[in-house]
């Protein structure tokens, strides 16, 4: 074989049990994460079929999707039916002997925040979860991908999955991101450039100087939106930053096993000359702070831009979709994004709710106030992030500025627990999806970095965090 192997090839071949057909393999699954939205459905269905979880110690259950995030929460949710998801998942997880991070536990939080935090995800491991944003965890050099509930049953029962082999794509980001430009802006830039099917059928390896320069939390943000890109998943070759990050975390190896793991993890990179099915190069200096204007994450533009005319984005969406997005968002071509009045601001979600995200937003909020009439909410990604932020006094900065400071969960990234922003409210949000009615009935969501959300909350309108407030 010439040309060397990709990082993906190395992980895939070390997990391949057997070929199923020309296109698919049976692969070993090292870690399974479940959450209360589908956890009970999958575990009950498994039990009904008389099947048991093959490796319960390698399977973890989080409470994030449906749980309430208002202070003083209980199992109750705003939508009455929500509680059953929580209690049924708790019961099913205990019955199956899985490790559960429950409401009230110090480890509670969003799965894709908690898993890296506890060292559940490891370089070179395969990890699956019935959640499309599982791709986030590729940031640590794992092969992590989202699956459905039935596939989760399969993984639980057999510690394997039958998977169609994805094609490989490398996106190399050369150079350095400008100061004030974040991983979120980079993710939105890639979406606007390559479209929401740009990664379809591929495992995307992010590489290049700008990616190596990102810290682990920023890499989680970049990989998080690979699902918006239509990709199977995303991955970044693990490096010393990842090893330093993992060392000492609860489920990371220790002692001689740590040393052995490090030796194998250092081989996890695409060989010189490895061939990819698709390659893209992007200059980091072309990336500016971004915001979405429409109802698909690909409908994103630079923050200092204007709502695009159909003629300027031809070839992307058909006219009907473009017009439909404009009508839904109540926007017209030529309207400047900066200065667009907002009703609400949200910082949270598996995309941007980690400690570094909150620190950067807090730096902009310090000594400032949220504009009158703007509902502003911050939901830390995990109970641990919340505690660390409180130890640093970050919660005070948010609260003093007029933000609600919440318990952890997926919260108003979507309204699973029933809470939402209200009819046709315009929201600037650090989340990942600006779909119709995602954050409330006919809500108008604009995706951006936590910095942009913070600056906009203060201005009462979409604002560039690099401009003086």
């Amino acid at each position, binding site marked *: 074989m010439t040309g060397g192997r990709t990082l993906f090839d190395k992980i895939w071949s070390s997990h391949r049990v057997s070929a199923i057909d020309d296109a698919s393999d049976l692969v070993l699954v090292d870690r399974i994460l479940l959450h209360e939205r589908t956890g009970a459905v999958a575990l009950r269905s498994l039990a009904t079929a008389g099947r048991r979880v093959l*490796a319960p110690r*390698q399977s973890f259950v989080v409470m994030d999707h449906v749980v309430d995030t208002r202070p003083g929460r209980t199992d109750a949710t705003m939508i009455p039916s929500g509680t059953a998801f929580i209690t049924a*998942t708790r019961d099913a997880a205990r019955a199956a002997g899985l490790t559960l991070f429950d409401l009230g536990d110090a480890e509670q939080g969003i799965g894709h925040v908690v898993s890296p935090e506890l060292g559940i995800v490891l370089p070179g491991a395969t990890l699956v979860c019935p959640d499309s944003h599982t791709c986030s965890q590729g940031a640590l050099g794992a092969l992590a991908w989202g699956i459905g509930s039935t*596939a989760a049953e399969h993984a639980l*029962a057999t510690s394997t999955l039958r998977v169609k082999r994805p094609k490989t794509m490398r996106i190399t980001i050369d150079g350095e991101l400008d100061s004030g430009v974040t991983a979120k802006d980079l993710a939105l830039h890639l979406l606007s450039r390559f479209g929401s099917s740009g990664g379809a059928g591929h495992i995307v390896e992010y590489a290049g100087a700008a990616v190596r320069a990102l810290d682990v939390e920023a890499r989680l943000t970049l990989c998080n939106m690979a699902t918006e890109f239509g990709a199977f998943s995303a991955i970044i070759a693990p490096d010393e930053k990842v090893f330093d990050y993992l060392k000492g975390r609860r489920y990371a190896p220790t002692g001689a096993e740590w040393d052995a793991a490090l030796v194998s993890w250092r081989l996890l990179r695409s060989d010189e000359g490895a061939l990819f099915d698709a390659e893209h190069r992007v200059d980091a200096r072309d990336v500016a702070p971004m915001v979405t204007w429409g109802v698909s994450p690909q409908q994103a533009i630079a923050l200092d831009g204007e709502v695009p005319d159909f003629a300027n984005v031809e070839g992307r969406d058909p006219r009907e979709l473009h017009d439909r997005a404009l009508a839904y968002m109540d926007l017209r071509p030529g309207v400047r994004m900066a200065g667009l009045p907002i009703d609400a601001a949200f910082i949270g979600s598996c995309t941007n709710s980690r400690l570094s995200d909150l620190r950067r937003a807090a730096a902009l909020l310090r000594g400032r106030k949220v504009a009158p009439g703007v509902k502003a909410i911050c939901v830390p990604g995990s109970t641990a992030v919340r505690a660390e932020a409180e130890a640093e006094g970050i919660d005070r900065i948010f609260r003093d500025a007029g933000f609600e400071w919440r318990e952890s969960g997926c919260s108003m990234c979507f309204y699973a627990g029933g809470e939402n922003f209200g009819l046709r409210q315009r929201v600037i949000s650090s989340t990942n*999806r600006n779909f119709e009615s995602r954050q409330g009935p006919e809500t108008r969501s604009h995706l951006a970095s936590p910095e942009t959300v913070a600056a906009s909350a203060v201005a009462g309108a979409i604002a560039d965090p690099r401009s003086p407030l």
Partner: protein
Amino acid sequence: MLPFKSLTAIAVPLIRDNIDTDAIIPSREMQSVSKTGLAGGLFAGWRYRPVGSREPNPDFILNDPRFAPAKILLSGGNFGCGSSREHAAWALAEYGFRAVVAASFNPIFRSNCVNNGIVPVELERDAITAIAASLGDRPDSRPVTVDLEACSVSTASGSRWTFGIDAEARQMLLGGMDAIELTFMRQENIAEMRAADRNERPWIYL
């Protein structure tokens, strides 16, 4: 799971790119810890007016009686993008859909379809447009056929297109098979591989 060989049924065109699973079944409609009880919430945000009510929106195509009962859905590119919620496939199946013909599919949604007896048919956009046009104003008397044995789609007027589908997915759909049963047949392989891997990477086996 219900096997699928060939189906001749009413097709309904909802031809738009990037129809996401939040649109197929909004989060608020997933009210019970169950794979059922979801058909009423299918496309709820578009199907009812005002949002959140159960008043049929007369402008939404599924509420047009000429398309009842539709079993084949025609759509655009990147169908089923967004959240991995299998409730989207469960809701479509419970409503009665057995096949979705689209320009492309989100990968998680595609396998959710296969796991629930829905055939994901990928065709060129021109073909989908032609199938939609073939329905005219009498979709109930111009049924569409999806033949999984022949891997073809044909219209009442006799136009026919073939499509590709992975051998694994096709076998599962044709036989109405359960993937876990198939994998259990390789249990020994899996056990051997896990034992060897435990020596190689003990830190994975907690």
